[in-house]
């Protein structure tokens, strides 16, 4: 269907339910994991507050090889994300980018007249943009960002939800002009809830493969919620820590350290057989992290990432032998540890990365 006959593409100037005015269409290519099934807009609320509007574009599904399936998946994903965002809002999850409003707008003049939308908090940037121009940004910002993301994941886990797509572009920064900007975890499009099944729950790699844990890359995704989904979040949190201090993804470092015959694009055996070698490569990758991290926190940071990125999803986490909590993947100690590291860094004179 032509975009001109589709309301989803023609919302600029319209007032959405809740008195949100659409101000600008965001022209952007499809993202890595979501496909090209949504249109984004800048919106303004009744009091002039900014918002980010995500509009579901079902028409693209009609051109898919299996339209019925794609429509079903899209609808399911949208409803799941909307419900989850509502839940996050109701629970006042402070480190998750929550929905300000959601609903349906009907514009009869278009052939595809009714479209669903969700309005989210607007961030200033994602973490990549904040760090791009800022070698001088002190380590506190990075540590505080990690602390905020860990807290966000902890909040999600406590309501029985796993994010599964934690990556730099989904770490959104608010008040970036402040010396201590705030970070929140965005994009719950690939999240899973323990009690509600969504189609993408069955994918081996749910989120962006670039940040996926190795068991997913080697197609050995566990079945149970803990090792399959919570452990995935832990790995991605460790990967984010690596990225913030090296500007390289943990999986790129692993790929470099693994002999080509052992990496996930070539290995044809089981994950159990290669896991030990992945662990060995991780050890070397962590030395790269150590070399890039400030000396004052390097040891703590490396040990944190070592625990978070353990190639064995059953052992992932920071509880240590004999200390694993009942939930297995509780983030409490990680949040505390990151808070402590950030506070320690805050007490020192501001310092950029080495």
């Amino acid at each position, binding site marked *: 269907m032509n975009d001109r006959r589709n309301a989803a593409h023609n919302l600029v100037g319209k007032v959405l339910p809740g008195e949100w005015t659409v101000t600008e269409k965001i022209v952007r290519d499809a993202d*890595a994991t979501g496909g090209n099934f949504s249109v984004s807009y800048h919106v303004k609320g009744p009091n002039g507050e900014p918002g980010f509007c995500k509009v579901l574009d079902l028409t693209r599904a009609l051109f898919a090889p299996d339209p019925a399936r794609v429509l079903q998946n899209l609808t399911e994903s949208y409803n799941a994300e909307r419900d989850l965002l509502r839940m996050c809002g109701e629970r006042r999850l402070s480190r998750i980018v929550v929905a300000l409003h959601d609903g349906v707008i009907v514009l009869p003049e278009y052939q595809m007249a009714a479209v669903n939308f969700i309005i989210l908090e607007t961030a200033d940037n994602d973490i990549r943009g904040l760090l791009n121009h800022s*070698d001088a940004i002190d380590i506190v910002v990075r540590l505080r960002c990690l602390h905020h993301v860990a807290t966000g994941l902890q909040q999600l886990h406590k309501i029985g939800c796993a994010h599964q797509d934690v990556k730099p572009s989904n770490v959104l920064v608010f008040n970036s002009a402040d010396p201590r900007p705030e970070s929140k975890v965005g994009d719950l499009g690939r999240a899973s809830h323990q009690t509600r099944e969504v189609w993408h729950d069955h994918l081996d790699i749910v989120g962006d493969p670039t940040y996926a844990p190795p068991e997913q890359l080697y197609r050995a995704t566990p079945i149970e919620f803990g090792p399959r989904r919570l452990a995935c979040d832990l790995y991605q949190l460790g990967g984010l820590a690596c990225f913030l201090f090296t500007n390289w993804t943990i999986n790129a470092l692993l790929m470099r350290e693994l002999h080509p015959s052992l990496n996930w694009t070539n290995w044809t055996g089981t994950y159990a057989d290669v896991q030990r070698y992945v662990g060995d490569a991780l050890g070397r990758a962590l030395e790269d992290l150590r070399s890039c991290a400030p000396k004052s926190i390097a040891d703590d940071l490396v040990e944190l990432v070592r625990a978070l990125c353990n190639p064995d999803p059953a052992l992932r986490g920071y509880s240590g032998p004999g200390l694993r909590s009942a939930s297995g993947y509780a983030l409490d100690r990680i949040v505390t540890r990151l808070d402590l590291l950030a506070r320690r860094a805050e007490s020192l004179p501001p310092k950029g990365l080495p």
Partner: protein
Amino acid sequence: MTIQSGIQAREVVPWWRSFGAAVRSRELLPLRTSADRVPLRAGVREPMDAFNRDPGPYTAGDVMGHLIVAGTDDGRAVAAKELLLSSSQAEPRRRLSERMLAPRGQQTMDDCPDPELDPERTKRRISLLRELLTREPRNAIRWADLARAYAEFGQKVKARRAILTAAELAPNDRFVVRTATRAFVHLGEPDTAHDLLLKSDLLLHDPWLLAAEVAVSSILDTAPREIRRSRRIVERREVAPWHLSELASALATIEWRAGARKRARKLMLQATEEPTDNALAQAESVAKDGLIEIAPEQMARRRAFEARARYFARAGDAEKAAKYGMLWLAEQPFDTDPAGFTSYVAAAGIEDFELSLQAAEAGLRANPNYALLLNNAAYALINLGRLAEARKYLDRASGVSSDSDDRAVLLATSGMLAFREGDRRAGRKLYDDAIAQLQAPGSEVTVLLATMNLAREEIMMGSVDGLDILRSALRAVEGSKDADVHLAWNRLVSSLDALSVRLGDS
């Protein structure tokens, strides 16, 4: 005979390689493909879009991360690469980017064989590994590597402790179990090696471990416990020939020793369809018996150092045998076989006594009380005119030698030393005593080599007895089929030519 190779009956015991070398050798490849691989989607549009909007190290790193992880770095991201490598980046991260974006090369920890056999390099490696293991105490791979590095220095107690730790941490890992097998054989504990193999869950279906079980059983002189399973796996050919190469080779060796040449030949041919370096060396070691002939293209395999060393020794090309012997020694520096072989070939074949000494001393670092290597080092030193140093080696050797043949060989080398010190009478007596002690069956070649050396020493002293001894040796040489004998004879004739001595002239 005053120098010898000391090569023992060869078994297809796994090679003891570092982890990096083992991976490169392809012996850790999976037996079967578990699932069809769907290529990962790079999903690079969003990061590329972000980079184009806001070029910087973090958007650039995200772009490159996507391309590297998907294995599709196809040159789309030139600007991102340039930015990551630009001098404006902070130094540690720029260096990391240089490494990340450089063509794949040698890894720091995954050492290649060091042809210089530099002990300082091994010391550095030990230091690195120990440091790493304080951070990763459960890394079985690096415990195994540490054991190997200790073994290179003859620190057997430490090597044993390290390899035992590795085996306890990873009893079902092919690399670790095979490495531990070789290590315990080296440490003189083949029974421990066998126990480890039997305890491993992998043994029942992994031909790489079954091959080790057959080889270790041969050393223990017992029937392999899984021989029927091993035969079945080789016959069924359900996995690629590469994976069956060592098992077929080990079984062929058993059949060959039992005199079943037809079965042995069939198995050895299977072993060499797509051979490992180990299986190829085994095939070459039995080739002199005419069991099979190895195709030249197989011998040209990049790392078939042992096979090539043995092949050129058999073909009478001592120079190449010594060259590949050194590479074999560099790959297995803890092992007495390559050190003995190379020190022997370099001395007896091409009279390169510096090389012979280097090989013997490298072997002695790992095996300081190995009488044969002490003897060979002394032999090389005598020929280099460093008589006092040679005396020290011989004294050390006499203190550790318990084998009667070893003692006889040491007597002969002491005889040579006496000749060179100008004491012909003592030298002659020591040689005669040595030859008298070497009268047991199977010592004929050793006696002949000792006799030739005695003849040369006598001739060099201007004694006419030397020519008589030489004439008597010639008849035995003509009747011998042993390549070492002919190699030594040709070398002796050349050196006497240099002294303008002509057989029969007098």
